[in-house]
């Protein structure tokens, strides 16, 4: 920011490659937190799952995991200079109303950019979220131009809301609306703009600091409770890795470079094979049985569960969804959908696990099931 005239805009409009950013903590170097990691990966492989909610105490690695995920994901191809990060492979210009000139699919130049992970800070204004009239062009040139907001930047990526439980209600309403429709419609200040905004909503928060609105809770596809590891060995390992990272981030990242590359490859493969993963009838039956047993409202629980199980199978390179996948995902896919007494503080995951063992039978030796 030394010479302001060099910078065309205070708010970059494109999900530009973050070259200047210090390397984040590698995703594969995170100790424990298996439920959190698999939930994030599942959402990255199949964005239709509908977002991830992370609940837990401060400093348990919520933000670290999300920011690390961004760096671990395979990059995506976008039309060069398109402020909405259009996908060149989709035929229709979904962003036609705002940037038709740049996105002629056949001829447009394309570039590979990292998947955006956009932070939505507390206290953000509605203008910044949905976009607004471009202040500087309006004032200096008298032009009516739309300046895309955070929703546009998050398109095809992740929108991360830390402390989502403290976010103001009208912003939450707005996020839910756009997340559900996949489109941001702006009708304000004489502007009439609609542009695609499909993103994975990732929220985190500490429930002790305030409850999340129940309507919001249900909109997240997966919800995970994170806790600091309770054993000394993991804690020591966390401390060691953090210290090594702080001392020399580059050398630390290099140690995990291979693991990160492998993960990226696994995610790419998983996305490609996702459609071919087979779901046996038994899985449909058991999932329905499980949801009925728990009395979850609507069918969103079943649908999310099946989608997530399919994505999990794809990530682990399996061709068929098995009961082990259902077992592993049930707490995070169903725990937050139980009809709950607001004053009941018994962990919902405990109820889900009980139901899982009643419906699917006790855990088989060798099958992987996550801890509470």
């Amino acid at each position: 920011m030394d010479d302001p005239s060099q910078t065309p805009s205070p708010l970059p409009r494109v999900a530009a490659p973050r070259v200047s950013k210090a390397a984040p903590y590698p995703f594969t170097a995170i100790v424990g937190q298996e439920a959190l990691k698999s939930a994030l990966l599942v959402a990255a492989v199949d964005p239709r799952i509908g977002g991830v909610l992370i609940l837990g105490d401060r400093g348990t690695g919520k933000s670290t995991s999300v920011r690390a995920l961004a760096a671990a994901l395979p990059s995506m191809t976008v039309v060069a200079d398109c402020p909405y990060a259009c996908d060149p492979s989709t035929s229709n210009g979904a962003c036609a109303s705002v940037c038709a000139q740049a996105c002629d699919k056949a001829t447009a130049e394309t570039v590979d950019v990292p998947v955006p992970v956009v932070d939505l800070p507390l206290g953000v204004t509605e203008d910044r979220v949905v976009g607004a009239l471009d202040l500087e062009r309006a004032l200096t040139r008298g032009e009516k131009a739309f300046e895309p907001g955070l929703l546009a930047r998050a398109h095809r990526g992740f929108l991360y809301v830390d402390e989502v439980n403290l976010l103001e209600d009208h912003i939450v309403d707005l996020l839910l609306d756009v997340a559900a429709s996949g489109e941001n419609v702006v009708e304000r200040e004489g502007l009439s703009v609609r542009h695609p905004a499909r993103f994975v909503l990732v929220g985190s928060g500490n429930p002790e600091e305030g409850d999340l609105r129940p309507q919001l809770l249900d909109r997240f596809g997966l919800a995970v409770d994170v806790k600091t590891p309770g054993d000394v060995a993991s804690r020591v390992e966390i401390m060691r890795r953090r210290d090594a990272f702080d001392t020399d981030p580059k050398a630390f990242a290099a140690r995990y470079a291979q693991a990160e590359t492998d993960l990226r490859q696994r995610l790419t493969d998983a996305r490609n094979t996702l459609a071919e993963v087979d779901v046996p009838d038994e899985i449909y039956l058991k999932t329905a049985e499980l949801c009925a047993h728990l009395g979850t409202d609507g069918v969103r629980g079943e649908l999310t569960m099946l989608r997530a199980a399919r994505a999990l199978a794809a990530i682990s390179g399996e061709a068929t969804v098995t009961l082990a996948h259902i077992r592993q995902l049930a707490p995070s896919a169903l725990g937050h959908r139980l009809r709950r007494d607001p004053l009941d503080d018994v962990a919902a995951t405990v109820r889900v696990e009980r139901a899982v063992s009643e419906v699917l039978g006790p855990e088989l030796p060798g099958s992987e099931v996550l801890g509470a």
Partner: protein
Amino acid sequence: MTEAVAQQLTAEARRDAISAACLLAVAPQALRGLRLRARAGHHRDAYLDILAALLPTVLGAAGRESVHRWHRLPSQTTEDRLLGGLDLVATLAEGRPVLEPGILARAKGGYVLIPMAERLPTATAARISHVMDTGEILDGVPACFGLIALDEGIDDEALPEALGDRLAIHVELEPGPPFDEVDLDELRERTEAARQAFAATKLDDATCDAIAAVSLALDVRSVRAMALCHAVTRAAAALDGVDTATPDHLALAIRLVLLPRARQIPQQAEAPPPQEQPPPDAPEPNLDQPPPDPSTQQALDDIVLAAALARLPPDVLARLAGDARTRVAASSTARSGGNETRARHGRPAGVRLGDPTRGDRLDIVATLRTAAPWQALRQRKPDAPVVLQRSDFRVKRLVRPTGVTTIFLVDASGSSAMHRLAEVKGAVELLLADCYVRRDHVALIAFRGKAAELLLPPTRALARAKRALAALPGGGGTPLASALVNAEAVVADVRRRGNRAEIVVLTDGRANVDRNGRPGRANAEADAQAAARSLRAKGVGTLVIDTSARPDPASGRLAKALGAAYMALPYADARTLSSAVRAASASTAPARGARA
């Protein structure tokens, strides 16, 4: 605890505070900053002077001497001023976008001082935390600053947890004599030498294990705290000129980093008799055990923890054990609304003349519309098709719905408890469920024995309200006056945060402890009446629920003094209770709704 021991503890706290300043100066980048909990005054200024003298001029650059200048963060800093943004006036004058760096960018390599950090809005804290995490202010603008948070909070007021968690060292400073014992030159020499040595300082496995075990024992849930404790231990070793940390260094780090974050104090540690602690300079008995074999490992954890705990004044222990949990949660939730008289967030509702540089949102269309008729008269520059002047600025009026905080006053005295404390708890739970539906905040004041106690400051976490209620014991006198005085304080607090208060009193009304905690029915009754009238003057919607076995004239009198709606519990079920609360609040307070 004798006078001498207390004095010794104070002296040790002072020594720890000075050590904290040195440690921050040794590793300013690894430790991120300092949270200084102290009242404003000479003593704090003297401490800050020492800190300024020790800190390196530019973060990361070792060995340059000069007194450091802080960048103060003014209260009510807007996002633009914090992170940088468009300079509107200059932009208009120049006819091209002119950016203005924010405070965080201007503090490049220096220190940002947050005065009155306990009043820092949660949103601002979240922005700063985000910048600290990513090391980047806006895209491409690197962030490099240390943070000193001056926390002047009393009781449950404190720095927002998001930020507090990221600052390594927490120092609590009691007023005292000037820091004459500090030899500044000697300290500066030592810290500078240590700054060079810091990178090479390592911790052995036993020390790492001890940090993990102690953090577990203190129920410190933040992994960040452990990493910071690790860094502080290394800095402490570097400061002493050794390259391997001793248990003394570890104990110091635990006192500065982990103890202030403790959510529980281990049982066995509450027992150690104070006379056991040696003078601080005497070698501790555990120094002669370098080989970290498993059997001594447990011992090291315990000894270090005990040593750290023994150096704390007993009331700190009691407070930590008692309400660390409450304090953590209360501070940031309630402040999410802020206390602005003019909302800066919310839904837009019209425009007004205003100055966008003061943090109000500029309404561009209205501004242009205002300027339009004058364009012919104003001289046009070729590159500025629209000529705007300051007087054209129109800003948005925003409205934010006010929240409601329901304050429950629960009588847990002997007279109530004998009969129906359980029923009262049930009634409160019904009302809590109602509050959940309406997204109200709740606060809980219980009164029994000598005085009332704020069990739960205003919060939305209803599960915690229920827990607090379930754990509420019964028995003792009825300090009704104290409860009402407490409620008045909470009402003032709620209003300061821009919310509306409602009070529900559940009592049999038979006050028998006056507001000073002395028994005596007549005095108690008079005090309660006086407190009730004072509360009534605040104009708060109030409901008195009589919990005595048969309706009692005492609670009727209380309701009258409070100007409250009155009902008897025997006939209360869920629906009548909640509609009574509604009716009570509607009769005395304006309807819930928007506020400009």
